[in-house]
């Protein structure tokens, strides 16, 4: 049985890890997935309330805590509802069954004769006088979870499937709710002078000049090449840190060259190479190919990262907006040489991260300082330029799509060739914490790895087309030494791969003289995908989209995220003059059973807006000194005046398993824009972002 249990339960078999019925007739559900702005915690509470038949208002959720909540790894990859949700459903169904089975024995009836109303048990219409709080025993909580209890049929759902408002939002529209707001006794503020890169050595630091700039009391903490300014007055340490960089000199800092900022730089660099899926060589025939790219992009969280840490009596307590409290605890143990049991990590809400940003690094900053200044709370707030300058970026990617065509102009063989740096470089997958690299005994160089294809892949994510081609393969070049640190950013390789695949399909359709939607449908048997494409094509007025080259265009694309999670089709209408403006967007998505349709819609639409931003505007520039886009002026994102009207439709499939959908509109949006711009211009731009300069160049070509 345990082989088929979700990993979350396999790793946390004890019922008491998940559920606690409290004396005030409330229930605490503990989960390992954390709220990052996606609304997952509200949805998980809905699932528990549904299976237990307990009013939602009685359920509190503890999420992300190494002391009291289960270890569910990282909150990533659109897995919160698909995996943790399934776990919560199995756990709560089993708990209900345990308790009701015993009650049925006592009443000498079948468990099916017992109904539950807001946690109270009724036999037929008669109250039994028992409820979860009175009838559950220690043994119910102590026993391991088997995971084989029957769960409710979706047709009976009353709470799941409802647009329940987010639990954390009332506080957040009233000025509360973030880690940045926490105040602890004896709290000191800290700012960091960052080591410019791995291996850089601090040659000199003009502490006197920095003290003058700070203009108040503070300590300068130095551990190896790690430097922090720590004091009671946040304004003072902020001034010191802002002034510090010119007062430090570093040795062993390699210079960069401007070409490093482009995806094309990756091609031909030393790489780990694989051929996946069809390993045979492509046949001879009519070969067409085109290459597409995305540059390095930032998570660009609205809030620079923040963490608090306290070191008392050899024990470390940390508050963090990390995506994974247990993995962070392991990293802290490794960096500080402490046993994991001596460390507690509590999750606290931060701004949206969209992947691996500075959250974990700042927590290590705080912990290292806390060890130097024990018995006080150390609050570290990164600065804006620090977040842009040091968060791991989403890697640049260069993708070549290559097809061998049959007489009808359809691919009989397809190759997606990907050049990319790593998409996931957390400490658990070969990466280093920034702070660790500055300490006197730094860790070995990072070891480039990428997620396995079974987990959706990294550079290969969505690289394999789901069309019915006779032969298809991915050639993956994992470039070993990118010019800047990279790690997980929403969708990993999906954005660029779907952009490449779905733009190339349009190009092949054009070459075959076929309408792109009809061309897609002629190559695609998956009924769920077909239904979404037809849905979006009908709503966007595809049939009357008109000729190419008028300055106005409509484009369409679709994908199934990770080739196994939620489906989304997106169409956009663009106007192209000097710049591209997305005027309208239409989306249809199929995520199987949707727990909270309003939350799902928020994720689908948010993914569309963020993808428009990345496709049209975003690029981290590199210069000789490293990253050059260190503020919002130099790293512009989509503004209110640039956001289109979005019409999203969830195509419900409540009897099918829930599919992770937080990232599913990302790639289709990028590709739909690529196709719409090609339709508007009559010529194609294959490199993101689709800027004014690229439009001008395309029109002159």
């Amino acid at each position, binding site marked *: 049985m345990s082989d088929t249990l979700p990993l979350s339960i396999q790793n946390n078999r004890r019922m008491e890890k998940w559920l606690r019925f409290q004396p005030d007739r409330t229930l605490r559900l503990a989960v390992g997935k954390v709220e990052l702005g996606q609304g997952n915690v509200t949805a998980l509470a809905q699932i528990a309330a549904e299976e237990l038949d307990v009013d939602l208002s009685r359920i509190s959720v503890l999420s992300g805590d190494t002391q009291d909540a289960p270890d569910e790894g990282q909150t990533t990859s659109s897995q919160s509802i698909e995996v943790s949700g399934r776990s919560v459903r199995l756990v709560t169904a089993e708990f209900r069954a345990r308790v009701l089975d015993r009650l049925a024995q006592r009443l000498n009836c079948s468990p099916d004769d017992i109904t539950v109303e807001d946690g109270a048990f009724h036999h037929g219409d008669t109250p039994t006088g028992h409820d979860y709080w009175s009838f559950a025993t220690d043994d119910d909580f102590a026993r391991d979870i088997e995971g084989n209890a029957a769960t409710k049929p979706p047709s009976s759902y009353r709470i799941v499937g409802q647009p329940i408002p987010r639990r954390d939002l009332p506080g957040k529209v009233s000025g509360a709710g973030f880690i940045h707001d926490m105040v602890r006794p004896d709290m000191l503020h800290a700012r960091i002078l960052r080591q410019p890169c791995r291996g850089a050595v601090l040659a000199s630091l003009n502490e006197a000049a920095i003290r003058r700039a700070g203009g108040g009391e503070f300590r300068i903490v130095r551990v190896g090449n790690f430097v922090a300014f720590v004091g009671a007055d946040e304004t003072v340490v902020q001034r010191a840190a802002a002034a510090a960089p010119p007062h430090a000199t570093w040795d062993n800092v390699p210079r960069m060259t401007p070409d490093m900022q482009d995806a094309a730089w990756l091609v031909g660099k030393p790489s780990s190479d694989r051929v996946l899926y069809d390993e045979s060589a492509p046949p001879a025939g009519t070969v067409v190919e085109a290459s597409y790219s995305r540059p390095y992009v930032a998570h660009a969280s609205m809030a620079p990262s923040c963490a608090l840490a306290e070191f008392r009596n050899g024990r470390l307590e940390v508050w963090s907006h990390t995506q994974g409290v247990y993995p962070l605890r392991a990293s802290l143990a490794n960096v500080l040489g402490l046993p994991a049991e001596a460390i507690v990590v509590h999750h606290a809400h931060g701004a949206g991260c969209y992947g691996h940003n500075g959250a974990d690094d700042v927590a290590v900053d705080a912990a290292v300082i806390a060890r130097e200044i024990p018995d006080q709370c150390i609050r570290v707030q990164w600065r804006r330029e620090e977040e842009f300058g040091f968060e791991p970026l989403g890697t640049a990617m260069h993708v070549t799509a290559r097809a061998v065509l049959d007489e009808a102009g359809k691919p009989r063989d397809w190759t997606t060739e990907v050049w990319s740096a790593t998409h996931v470089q957390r400490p658990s997958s070969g990466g280093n914490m920034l702070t660790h690299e500055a300490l006197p005994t730094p860790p070995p160089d990072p070891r480039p790895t990428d997620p396995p294809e079974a987990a959706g892949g990294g550079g290969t994510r969505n690289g394999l087309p789901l069309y019915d081609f006779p032969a298809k393969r991915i050639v993956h070049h994992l470039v070993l030494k990118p010019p800047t640190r990279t790690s997980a950013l929403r969708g990993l390789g999906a954005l660029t791969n779907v952009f490449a695949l779905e733009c190339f399909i349009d190009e092949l359709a054009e070459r075959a003289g076929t309408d792109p939607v009809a061309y897609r449908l002629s190559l695609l048997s998956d009924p769920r995908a077909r239904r979404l494409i037809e849905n979006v094509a009908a709503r966007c007025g595809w049939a009357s989209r008109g000729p190419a080259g008028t300055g106005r265009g409509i484009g369409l694309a679709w994908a199934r995220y990770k080739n196994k999670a939620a489906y989304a089709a997106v169409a956009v209408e663009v106007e192209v003059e000097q710049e591209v403006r997305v005027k309208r967007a239409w989306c249809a998505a199929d995520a199987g059973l949707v727990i909270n349709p309003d939350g799902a819609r928020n994720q689908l639409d948010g993914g569309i807006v963020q993808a428009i931003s990345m496709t049209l505007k975003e690029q981290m520039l590199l210069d000789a000194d490293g990253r050059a886009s260190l*503020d919002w002026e130099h790293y512009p994102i989509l503004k209110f005046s640039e956001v289109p009207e979005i019409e999203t439709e969830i195509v419900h499939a409540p009897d099918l398993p829930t599919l992770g959908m937080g990232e599913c509109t990302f790639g289709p949006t990028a590709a739909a824009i690529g196709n719409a711009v090609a339709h508007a211009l009559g010529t194609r731009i294959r490199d993101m972002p689709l800027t004014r300069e690229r439009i001008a160049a395309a029109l002159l070509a």
Partner: protein
Amino acid sequence: MIELTVNDKTVSVGAAEITPLLDVLRNELDLKGSRYGCGLEQCGSCMVLVDGEPVFACSREVGTVAGRHVTTIEGLGGTHPLQLAFLEEQAGQCAYCLSGIIMSAKALLDRNPSPTRDDIVTALDRHLCRCGAHPRIIRAVAKAAETLRQERARA
């Protein structure tokens, strides 16, 4: 000491005149709702009202607001029609940007009770939202405007 009015209460603060208003609000007055985002007047997370006009608190020196009226998200009390409309529309994801956006929206609705979509977009265009909640935010501001108009009509 610098005297100013914050959320209708007169306060004296001991910070130096050049201290950013945002630091004074957050650390001296314990009003944490105004947020640090960039310190450069580029994102709007720190937006507060000074005598009713939106002001970036991150770069505004506290000395320059002596004797003036500062309103922060806490001054809206939690049940302002804007706050309720943002909840009705679930107009946010991470919500870090919302304090500042709600303050700019308040300034807009105070001077223009019937804003068009373009008016709302223009009033919010200095604000960044990374989650992509913009369409909901625009709807929420329009909904709050309608609520306020109805309240005024009843009054």
